[in-house]
């Protein structure tokens, strides 16, 4: 067996939160090891989502989430401008039926949150009677591929950071005032600070840590599909989100030239309410995915059939004909959802410190621009 290497911090998961933490620590002159199950960074949730940089519009029933989002929005757009698409009209509309929020409530909410909301005629985008209000807003979309390359380049310049892809963690246990992480290939590493930034696998990682008293996150899991589509000329410079209820969103997907299409009812294909993700498709995944270790849904042989017929029909029911789009492909990914956020639809970032000396911190956030919440726990100067 090889010698155990020492690190100031070990980070599990090379998504945005993991790599952000790695760069943050490297700049504090720390030695950092990033462990990633996949063979690439940003292979899952960071890439496979709507790529929306949230300004807060999404949470008309949770003003606190909205205000926080708006605050982070400015900082995030400043720091990561290079990967952002800003030049498009982002339209939020309230559906005439089934919406939990109507046009005037939405306007009031935007005023309270202090975010832009200019009324436009719903008939410009929607079929008659489908939406009772449409609003021009400011929101951007980020390109995960560009963001990833930026991070990998920056991290490559830092001598103290190493990223280990295809990392198979066998177990993690406490050894004095450090955690020892053992990989299947015999490698082991030691650290006084372990960060679990594995998003959907958060509870699975917790389970790998021996003798740790730690309640799993109260989450449910949704296997989600994002559809990439080619927008029509009219749709290209426009992003449209119909809310607040069982609706859909079609908006630019970073700088790819494609649009992402999602819908509240059809984007989640399956749901697991267990504390570890249990899905019937795992049996057909040829061992690549279990309730103890999630595979990458996107590469899975058992990934579900696309819900394109459903999602496209829902969007077509609302949108005027000229805002058409055609199917390009589907991306699948696992999404953990905090159970207590159902009612007000808020998406808080949860950072849990499970032990001190050695430190073990688990982070779970559904939004990319709240990544700055990590600063506090990572900072040396505390």
């Amino acid at each position, binding site marked *: 067996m090889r010698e155990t290497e020492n690190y100031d911090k070990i980070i599990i998961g090379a998504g945005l939160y993991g790599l952000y933490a790695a760069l943050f620590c490297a700049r504090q002159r720390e030695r950092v090891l990033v462990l990633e199950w996949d063979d690439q960074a940003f292979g899952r949730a960071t890439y496979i989502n709507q790529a929306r940089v949230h300004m807060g519009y999404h949470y008309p029933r949770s003003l606190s989430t909205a205000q926080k989002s708006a605050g982070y929005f400015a900082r995030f757009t400043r720091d990561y401008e290079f990967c952002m698409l800003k030049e498009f009209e982002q339209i939020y509309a309230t559906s005439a039926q089934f919406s939990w929020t109507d046009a005037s409530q939405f306007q009031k909410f935007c005023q309270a949150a202090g975010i832009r909301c200019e009324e436009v005629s719903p008939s410009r985008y929607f079929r008659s009677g489908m939406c009772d209000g449409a609003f021009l807003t400011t929101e951007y979309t980020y390109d995960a591929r560009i963001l990833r390359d930026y991070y990998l380049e920056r991290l490559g310049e830092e001598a103290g950071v190493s990223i280990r892809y295809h990392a198979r963690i066998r177990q993690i246990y406490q050894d004095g005032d450090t955690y020892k992480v053992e990989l299947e290939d015999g490698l082991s590493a030691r650290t006084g600070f372990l960060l679990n930034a594995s998003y959907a696998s958060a509870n699975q990682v917790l389970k790998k840590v021996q003798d740790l008293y730690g309640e799993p996150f109260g989450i449910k899991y949704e296997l989600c599909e994002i559809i990439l589509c080619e927008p029509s000329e009219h749709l290209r410079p426009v992003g449209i989100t119909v809310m607040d*209820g069982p609706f859909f969103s079609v908006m630019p997907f970073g700088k790819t030239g494609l649009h992402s299409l999602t819908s509240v*009812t*059809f984007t989640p294909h399956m749901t697991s309410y267990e504390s570890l993700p249990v899905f019937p498709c795992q049996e057909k995944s040829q061992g690549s995915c279990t309730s103890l270790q999630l595979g990458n849904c996107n590469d899975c042989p058992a990934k579900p059939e696309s819900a394109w*017929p*459903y999602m496209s*029909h*829902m969007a077509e*029911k609302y949108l005027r004909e000229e805002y058409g789009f055609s199917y390009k492909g589907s991306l699948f990914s696992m999404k953990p959802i905090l159970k207590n956020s159902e009612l007000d639809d808020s998406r808080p970032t949860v950072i849990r410190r499970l032990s001190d000396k050695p430190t073990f911190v688990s982070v779970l956030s559904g939004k990319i621009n709240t990544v700055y919440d990590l600063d506090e726990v990572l900072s040396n100067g505390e």
Partner: protein
Amino acid sequence: MENKEKNFVSAVIYVYNHEKALPGLLNRINGILAENFEHYEIICVDDRSTDGSVKMIQKFAGKVEGASVSILHMSYYQGVELAMNAGVDLAIGDFVFEFDKVDEEFPGELLMEVYRTSLTGFDIVSAAPNRAERWTSRLFYWIYNRAAAGRAPLRSEAFRILSRRAINRVHAMCQSIPYRKAVYASCGLRTETLVYEQRSRGGGISGEERANRRDMAFNSLILFTNLGYKLSGALAGLMMALVIFIGIYTVVIFISAKPVEGWTTTMLFLALAFFGVFAIFAMIMKYLTILIDLVFTKQRYVIEGIEKVK
């Protein structure tokens, strides 16, 4: 079947305490749709059933493959019209089947026949049983069809299909649809009714539903026909004529019979006053009919939630 239809269809089913008949209907509809369509969805609108209907739907959804099944839970009992409005609003299909009555027997092939008929250019196609209706229904349709002459006549229907165009048209016409059949009939698009031989008559209806239907019958007559206005207008006219006659009679008596002092003035005053009152009534009637036209479009339904079961 190799060549399945590419059109996306939605089936919206009204469910109110139908646990017995429901599984049969769901399986039948699903079987036919699965055989004929590449993609479809089934929406069950549960109007606060108090029996095991919802469990039946959930059980059914567990077995279905390759289709979306949703339950739309109404917050409280709101009757078939509002509930089905909600269901159709939720549907995303190019064509939407409406099943108002779960316990209605109809031949399976009729479903596709109705669909194919609509493809030939009918935006709304209904399937109606050829049978003796209850005398109350018969009376209602008789009065209604006479009063709403010129529009497509109404009758008892088992189910119907709507094109997306028809739904859009109906939405553009009025914001709410208190009585779908009447709105569909007067939406101006081409409609067709397929009549079939009914083998057995559907089950009985509950007291609650009977009361609901009675209300609806009166409301529809008032909202979709000018029957109420005509009737009250005629009455007001009659009364005014009567008052004029009394006036003339008073003058005649005054000239010919020399009545008691004061009688003539009293009578003339009363005649004039009543004439005024009835004239005002007639105007109020007119105002009310206009108001109804404006106001009934505000009617909305309330839902508790939408459950996606599959």
